[in-house]
């Protein structure tokens, strides 16, 4: 029964680095723009600065994002943008989630 196994296969195939909710929100926001400031990512995710910093470091280690540090006046203005690999990863991830949703709907309909 390949159809009943498919959603589970798809679920296990999800990239855990991308799928974590905070990182998914960060990557989703970054996929909609060229670059965003650290402060904007704080606002859009609602994370604490330390937490966001930790998630960004993880994403940077996986080469999904690039962090450019600078200053706006006397305040630090860190800009973050997706790398090509990051853009591919988030696009693929959303595609996988859509397929998963479709497969789950199919399963539900076939059971009913």
């Amino acid at each position: 029964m390949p159809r009943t196994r498919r959603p589970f296969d798809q679920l296990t195939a999800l990239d855990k680095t991308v799928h974590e909710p905070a990182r998914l929100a960060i990557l989703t926001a970054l996929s909609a723009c060229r670059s965003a400031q650290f402060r904007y990512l704080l606002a859009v995710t609602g994370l604490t600065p330390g937490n966001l910093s930790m998630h960004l470091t993880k994403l940077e280690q996986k080469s999904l994002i690039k962090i450019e540090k600078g200053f706006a006046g006397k305040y630090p203005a860190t800009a973050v943008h997706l790398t090509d690999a990051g853009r591919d990863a988030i696009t693929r991830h959303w595609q996988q989630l859509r397929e998963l949703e479709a497969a789950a709907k199919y399963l539900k309909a076939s059971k009913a």
Partner: protein
Amino acid sequence: MEHQKIRFVTANYAQLQGLRLIPIGLFLMLTAFDVLGVFDRQSLSAADRAQALTRMGLLAWLAIGAALAAPVYYRYRYGAVEGFDRRRRDRWITAAVFGFFVLSRVDRNLDWPVSLSLMLVSVSLFVTALNEHWVRPYYPVLAAMWLLAACWPMLGGSPPGARLALCGLGGLTLVVIGIGDHLLLSRTLATPPSPGDAPHPTTL
């Protein structure tokens, strides 16, 4: 849905800075009252009329100044986003504005019970809402308002002049969009700690 909203707000961050539109909208509405003769400028002396005009000019500058200052507020509160190229969308807006002026001239020449220029605004607002998957629910409401104004002569009312429509309805539209966009932005984005509290880049 939340991720769709994050994507929409980030992609349209500059356009959703609604506080830019409110002062311009209020000024346009004030101008509409002037067009309607609420301020009764005809009964004023020449000196008083000049003074009233100066006041209007000053208010216009104040509105423009406030509109220009609004992005600074958003940058300070939520940070900055460098968006993608929006030339295609800007071209559509320019075409719609140009179309409005052309159709308002057509409206003046044809004695139709429906205003084509106002209809164009209504359709533009509706198409925008449709295109954005109804994220901004006030757009269809505004589209309905412009449609009503477009069909007003058909319903027995006297047709609103282009200037009055542009100032009154346009001003009201800008104020509603401004408030709605600002609320959408402020409800989607949390207020981060003040810039001084943000971690130093070396900690990243």
